[in-house]
């Protein structure tokens, strides 16, 4: 079965430090990949998405992600973390569920804590 793995449950970084959140997927064909961010008690906000083309995609809030087919990965990065980036981050994959329909499957999330 298709799955999305986020190996890190909780990451703590200092403000200004660089950040990388890992995401691996299990799917035979080229997936559609997403990163979402969720602040406490809020809904999900789309950070960036990859469908095809350039494997390095830029998103909002200074985030970027790189699709690596050979590693089945779509890691999220940010060069310098701000305190406001503290949140839960979810990687997600779209896989077909029959015909032209599809469903989004989420990883379990990575909680980011930012120290001052």
């Amino acid at each position: 079965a298709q799955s999305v793995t986020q190996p890190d449950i909780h990451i703590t970084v200092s403000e200004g430090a660089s950040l990388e959140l890992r995401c691996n997927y299990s799917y035979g064909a080229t997936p559609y990949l997403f990163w979402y961010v969720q602040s406490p008690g809020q809904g999900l906000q789309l950070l960036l998405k990859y469908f095809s083309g350039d494997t390095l995609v830029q998103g909002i809030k200074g985030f970027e992600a790189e699709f690596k087919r050979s590693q089945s990965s779509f890691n999220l990065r940010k060069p310098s973390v701000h305190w406001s980036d503290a949140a839960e981050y979810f990687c997600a994959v779209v896989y077909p569920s029959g015909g032209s329909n599809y469903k989004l499957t989420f990883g379990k999330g990575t909680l980011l804590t930012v120290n001052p």
Partner: protein
Amino acid sequence: EADIYQTPRYLVIGTGKKITLECSQTMGHDKMYWYQQDPGMELHLIHYSYGVNSTEKGDLSSESTVSRIRTEHFPLTLESARPSHTSQYLCASSELKRGYTFGSGTRLTVV
């Protein structure tokens, strides 16, 4: 400005009550979804719809039901709420494969 709206934002209700969580979107999306999320946990798909009069159960079994009579409206109903239903419920819609838009969620507490 949000394109997908969920009401109520917070709900505290007694056991045995019937409740309906509302979800509406103004984007004309055919596909809509309900996810359930316990605090600090992952999201689980409980219902989805690919268009009017189309509803399906998701990956996580749920005692809730949904309906899709209009494209823009996808309400979720619990006939008899129980404490085990306490959770956050997130509604989303999508078009083709261009990403999902989520509502702000309804945080339900059943006492």
